[in-house]
């Protein structure tokens, strides 16, 4: 279903958070693209910079963070350093967000209807009955009853809130949706329901998506390609089948091994070693402190990406 048209390109993205005790390098030379109609999964443990990459794409990195280098291209147009006014036109119409905190993404004191409508009216001239019908349709599409229209967020369950967010994100038929852990704040059953809703909407609209998560199991079922991130660096990118069949990077293997299974009883793998301080990354490979196969070459210079299979790249000196 994916065509070869690249709707989003992230080229050499570098993002630093300038803290009083030094710059946190939260994204280091990140390269990523999303093709039309494709879902790319961005995985990695907490703090590895997934949200940072997502917010960079929206040009909304929170202070003291700043994009210090690289390009973000939406349909070929570089939007880094675009004036705020131009960005406002691109946001939501081309680039929509399903934010990380499912529970707090909606303003608690404003009705759902208004929160859904303002995103639409900021970009399109729809008013009155047409607007209301549009919102009703969006609610229906994500499986919510029409009465949600007049409710406040606190009257909805977590899953319902997240579905409102999905409905909001697709309202303007954007080019790409960035879903930052859209299901991780929900319980397992609701997670599946929301994930399914997301997939349904995606299939119907053919929209492209970046889906952030740390659950490889859920990713396996939803995405077309996976990008694995560790400590601000991408370490492996490839089609989901290829990655699960043959994970090349030791960190990718660790993530796949961490998927719980009922068939075999695994000992819970506890993190071996800690991630280094992102303020002063080591010379060489970013994974060297936790890698079971670490050797001298790893400490010298960062490994370059190598193609291992069609569309499947890994950055590791072993290959």
């Amino acid at each position, binding site marked *: 279903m994916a065509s070869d048209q690249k709707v989003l390109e992230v080229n050499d993205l570098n993002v630093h958070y300038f803290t009083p005790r030094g710059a946190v390098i939260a994204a280091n030379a990140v390269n990523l693209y999303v093709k039309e109609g494709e879902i790319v999964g961005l995985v990695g443990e907490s703090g590895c910079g997934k949200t940072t990459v997502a917010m960079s794409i929206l040009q909304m990195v929170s202070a003291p963070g700043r994009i210090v280098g690289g390009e973000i291209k939406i349909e070929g147009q570089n939007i880094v350093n675009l004036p705020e006014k131009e960005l406002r036109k691109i946001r939501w119409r081309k680039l929509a967000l399903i934010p990380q905190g499912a529970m707090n*993404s909606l303003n608690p004191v404003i009705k759902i209807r208004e929160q859904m409508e303002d995103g639409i009216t900021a970009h399109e001239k729809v008013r009155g009955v047409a607007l209301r019908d549009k919102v009703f349709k969006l609610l229906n599409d994500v499986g919510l009853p029409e009465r949600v229209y007049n409710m406040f967020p606190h009257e909805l369950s977590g899953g319902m809130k997240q579905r409102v967010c999905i409905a909001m994100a697709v309202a303007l038929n954007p080019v790409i949706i960035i879903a930052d852990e859209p299901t991780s704040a929900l319980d397992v059953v609701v997670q599946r329901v929301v994930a399914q809703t997301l997939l349904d909407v995606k299939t119907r609209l053919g929209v492209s998506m970046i889906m952030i998560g740390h659950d490889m199991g859920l990713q396996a079922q939803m995405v077309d390609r996976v990008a694995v991130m560790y400590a601000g660096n991408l370490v492996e990118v490839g089609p989901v089948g290829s990655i699960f069949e043959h994970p090349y990077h030791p960190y990718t293997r660790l993530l796949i091994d961490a998927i719980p299974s009922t068939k075999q009883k695994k000992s819970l793998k506890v993190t071996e070693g800690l991630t280094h301080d992102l303020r002063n990354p080591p010379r060489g490979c970013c994974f060297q402190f936790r890698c079971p196969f670490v050797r001298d070459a790893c400490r010298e210079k960062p490994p370059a990406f190598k193609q291992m299979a069609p569309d499947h790249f890994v950055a590791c000196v072993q290959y």
Partner: protein
Amino acid sequence: MGGLTRSYFIQRVLMFFLTIWIGVTLTFVIPRLSGSDPTTAMLLTMMNQRGYVENADKIIESYKTSFGLNDPLPIQYIRYLGHVVRFDYGFSFARFPTAAWDMVTPALPWTLILLSVAAVLSFLIGVTVGSLMGWRKTPRWLQSILPISLTFTSIPYFMFGILLISIIAFKLHWLPATGGYSRSVDPGWNLPFIKDVLLHAVLPLISIVLTSMGGWALGMRGLMIGVNNEDYFLLAQAKGLSPARVFFRYGIRNAILPALTAFALGIGSLIGGSILVEFIFAYPGTGYTLYRAIQEQDYTVIQTITNLIIIITAAGVLILDLLYPLIDPRITYKRNVAS
């Protein structure tokens, strides 16, 4: 659904009366705990004025009888509650034939108008300044000049008042220094009088507003910074809404809720705090009256004014409580779940 439910309404109104009851009971109890006897004190004043007072004992006794101070405490208390309900506390202690209430009423409009205008102005300005200081998208130049408006916060407002009087009134002669209006105008609904009253109100108003808005600004700045990091605030920006809409609907709208509570609670302390301002500006308000009543140990007048402050504060809180479900739909919900 949000909005006002009946049980919430009843609960709040009961709370209103309970607060007042506790408050007025304290104003009954505290003077009686102080141990000083108002009648003796008054007699001492009379003696100071006239040198010698005949039949001092008898005077004290007759005072005590006419004010009911010889009755057992429960009876006094019940009679006192009657006073509270009727808003009539009997005669002024210090200026006997005058009713206590009559000593307060002329002062009331002055204070109410001056203070409500001052309170609302300082709240509005403070909230605006604070919100702008706490908002990331505020233009740099504005960010850098806003803190200047907080310079006066650290000055106590009576000091600031004195400063204003000496510079603006005495040196520059721009505005009248003291009083509520000049002797040269006729009190009433005529233009010269109204203009005169407004001119007299400027300096007290400025001294209250400039010195108290900083508190609101600092509080609001913190609240706004908190809201800046909320997910819904980020989402509002991601939606490409206009900065003004993000600022008002998703910023101030949420950040102001705790500030409103503080505002309602602050009404009482504002009245208390205005005593000094009214004193410095010789403003004919209740603060000034209260000051004089305390000096003269005029208990009935003191009680009238303190109970008035209690009722006004409680009413402020009640009004806010009733409005709150309309501005924060979560409130009724929570209460209903709890009860």
